[in-house]
Structures are given as structure tokens and as C-alpha cells.
């Protein structure tokens, strides 16, 4: 046991945490936007959109993220038009952008399936009530379908987000020195894999713990109707203005 080595390793790996978080955040955020689009296509009833979304999910859910990342980073640069494109090349030559892109494309496939399931699970009666009261489609979606579906999607979606945290480690395969890349470098320099990988593992563990807690809190906020009823004497909760 060499506590100093552990401390210095943890410190070095922690210094790469911001980079890991950056990949994670942008991957997940862009993925969320793409997933919303895919879910919409899937639910829209347009044959072509539905077909595209199905094919997309089939491809990106069915192949390893690492393969997708390599294809984007190593593969696409083989094409002349990519290297000469003023828009594509600045993105595709940068490993950071490539990783974020691969993660976003990948998580979009999974998330869109989660959202689709959640939308289908919204009780018909809730939507019928909104229809029967004359709510137009968009209002209905915003006030009724979306809030209920979000609540339903949250448990599965939080798992997907945690999977994405762990997937950021793949960035080390395309030269990015995020936490895993940093840990690997120390490991190669010192030949002490157990200590180094343990440190990295613990940091990932704590990171995911906080993400899980965060989601649990959001879930709590979104489901007052599933908690025990308030006492009669409870302070009157004002109706929020956002409604």
C-alpha cells in the first residue's frame, strides 16, 4: 500500500474529470435533441419518418459504440470529400467532436426507444380527457402527454445516462486524455494497474452515484401524486404559474 501513490493518481485522474463531463454533457444533450426528433418521427404516423427512425435505431443500437466511434474518427477521414469539406473536416478531424458525435448518435437510438415506450404508456383516458375538453394537439401534448410520459421515462432514461457516463471512457481510444485516458497513461508509466484502475473505477462510481441521486431527486419532484397524501392541515401550495 502506498497512500501517496493513490492520492497522486486520484488527483491526476480528477483533473481529467472536466473533460469527461464535457464529453458526457454534450453527448447526452445532443443525443436528447436527436432522440426527440426520432421519437417524433416514430410517432408521427408518416410512413417515411417511421421507417427512417426504425432503421436508425436498428443500426445504432445494434452495433458497438466503439465501432461507431472508429468509423466516424478513422473511417470518414478516408473520403476525399470529407477532408476537403470546410464544414465536415473541422469536426471530423477533431477526436473530441468525433466522440461527442458518436455518443450522441448512439444514445439517440436508445433514448428514442425509451421515449417511445413512455409515450405509449400514457394512459389513454388522460389523453381522452384532454381531447374531450377541446385541447388542440400541441396543448394536449404540453399539458398532459409530455409531463406524464417524462415521469414514466425517467427511470429508464437515467440508466441510459449512466451508461453514457461509462461510455465516455471510450474516448481514450481516440487519443483523448479524459479520466480513462489519463489513468491508462499513469498505468503505462508505472506498471501498477491495480492501484490506477481502482482509483479510476472509484471516481466513475462516485460520479454515477451523484448522477443517480440527481435523477432520483428529479423523479421525486415530478411525482407528488405518487407519494402519500398531504395532511389536511398542510400549508396551501400555490398553483404554479407555469401551468
Amino acid at each position, binding site marked *: 500500500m502506498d497512500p501517496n501513490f493513490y492520492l497522486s493518481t486520484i488527483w491526476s485522474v480528477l483533473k481529467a474529470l472536466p473533460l469527461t463531463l464535457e464529453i458526457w454533457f454534450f453527448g447526452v444533450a445532443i443525443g436528447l435533441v436527436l432522440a426527440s426528433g426520432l421519437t417524433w418521427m416514430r410517432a408521427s404516423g408518416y410512413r417515411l419518418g417511421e421507417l427512417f427512425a426504425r432503421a436508425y435505431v436498428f443500426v445504432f443500437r445494434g452495433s458497438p459504440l466503439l465501432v461507431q466511434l472508429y468509423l466516424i474518427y478513422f473511417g470518414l477521414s478516408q473520403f476525399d470529400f470529407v477532408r476537403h469539406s470546410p464544414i465536415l473536416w473541422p469536426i471530423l478531424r477533431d477526436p473530441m467532436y468525433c466522440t461527442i458525435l458518436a455518443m450522441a448518435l448512439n444514445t439517440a437510438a436508445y433514448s428514442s426507444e425509451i421515449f417511445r415506450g413512455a409515450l405509449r404508456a400514457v*394512459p389513454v*383516458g*388522460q389523453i*381522452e*380527457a*384532454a*381531447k*374531450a*375538453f*377541446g*385541447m*388542440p*394537439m400541441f*396543448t394536449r401534448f404540453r*399539458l*398532459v402527454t409530455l*409531463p*406524464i410520459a417524462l*415521469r414514466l421515462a425517467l427511470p429508464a432514461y437515467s440508466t441510459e445516462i449512466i451508461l453514457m457516463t461509462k461510455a465516455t471512457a471510450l474516448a481514450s481510444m481516440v487519443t483523448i486524455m479524459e479520466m480513462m485516458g489519463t489513468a491508462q497513461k499513469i498505468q503505462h508509466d508505472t506498471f501498477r494497474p491495480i492501484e490506477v484502475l481502482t482509483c479510476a473505477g472509484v471516481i466513475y462510481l462516485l460520479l454515477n452515484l451523484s448522477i443517480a441521486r440527481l435523477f432520483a431527486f428529479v423523479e421525486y419532484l*415530478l*411525482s*407528488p*401524486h*405518487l407519494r*402519500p*397524501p*398531504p395532511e*389536511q392541515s*398542510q400549508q*396551501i*401550495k400555490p*398553483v404554479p*404559474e407555469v*401551468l
Partner: protein
Amino acid sequence: MPANLSAASKAASSPDDDKAAISVKDMRKCFGDHEVLKGISLEAHKGDVISILGSSGSGKSTFLRCINLLEIPDSGEVRVDGELIRMKQGRDGRQMPADMRQVERMRANLAMVFQSFNLWSHMTVLENLVAAPTHVLKRPRAECLEQAEALLKRVGIWERRNYYPPHMSGGQQQRAAIARALAMNPKVMLFDEPTSALDPELVGEVLRVMRSLAEEGRTMLVVTHEMGFARDVSSQVMFLHKGEVDSLGEPKEMFARPPTQQFKQFIANFNK
């Protein structure tokens, strides 16, 4: 047919036929091969309370749901306050609404109360009551809140205004649902078996509210199994049998002298 006399005389006595609060002409609806509605017509004038009776599978709920187009009828006309709901041929050959805006406007005038309440579970009771008036009728929020509180007092659950629906009994939820419908100031209220999902001891509180609505002259179409309500509160009873109007008339008359064998049998089963 003596059963139709009162309805016919009523129609004749009102010179402006189009002014019925709601009128349905020859409505038909199939589910697959099964013809659920075989040409049903009904007219409700302002202040009418029409109970729609029938054994299960007679098409009474479907009829109600076809009126506000929660189900799209295969053919037939619906007029609300004389205004025809325009339909067109869909690409699959079935009928569909020509103008969703018109349908939404019509629905806002026909508030519905469901068998299973269908209160929005993620909103408090008060939020349930103001959601549609503020977002559909675009009325100011403060005014809606004030009205909502008054309505909740009226149906006796004001103390529960900040509760979420799952935290209330079935009777309280249904009263909240009725208040939600009232908050729209609807021209006609549609009740789809409002007491069928309730425990027997909770039925009374809901019926009391409905009775008070009938007494203040609300126009109501009520699909129900509550014979007492149909006989004592409604102004007309319509009995559906196998997708057709078997009989239609004033409740006192209908129950005292059942005009058809079917209806006689139907009420006999209830009196057992």
C-alpha cells in the same frame, strides 16, 4: 308509437328546429364487422336531461363518444347549437373531421364526465379545474381560479383542492371531474356512466351533485345504469337495444308503461 309522442310534440312545438342544443341524425358506427350504432337520432333542447339506458353492448357509450368525436362515427350528423360538425372522407375511405378547430371548439362546449374520472393525475384538483379554461377558452387565470374554488365548494371538496387525484376516493374524484366539466361553462354536459366505477356507498354523493345540476336547468346527456336517476331526474329516457333506439319518451310514462317488450325486460332485471 306512443313512446315517441312526447319527443315529437316537443320538436313540433319548437318552431326553430336548428336551435336544439344538440342534435344527432342517423348516426352509424361499426367496429370491424360489428355494427354498434345502427342509425341513431337524438335531439336535446336547452334544459333537457336525457338518460340513455341500455344493457351492456347496446352502444350507449359509443353513441356518447361519437357525439364529441372521441370515436369517429361512420356516418351521421352532429349539430351543436345548430352548427353542423363538418366531416370529410379520409384517405382510407373513412369519415374524419374536416376541421379540427371546429371540433375542438365544439368539444369545449360539450364537457364530458368519464366513467373512470380521467382526472389528470399529475395535476392537483385545482390545476385540473383551471387547465382547460385557461388554455382552451383563454380566460384569465385569476378568474378561473376563483371560479374553480367556487365550484369545488359547490361539489363539497374544496378542502381537497390541493390534493392529487390518486389521493382521493372515487366519489371525490368524480365530483372533482364534474367540477372540471362545469368550469368550462359547457352548453351540454355528457356523462358516460359516471357512477359505474364507484363503490356503492359513494354513488349517492355523485348523484346528488348531478341532480342539482339537472335542477338548475343544465342540458345533460347521461349514459347510466341508475334507474332512480333516469326515472326521477331526467326529462327524457332513451333506451338503446342492439344499436338501435328501442324507445324514447318521458320517464314517468316509460317506467309506468314500458312501451316495448325489451324495455320491460330491461327494467324488470333491475327491479329484481
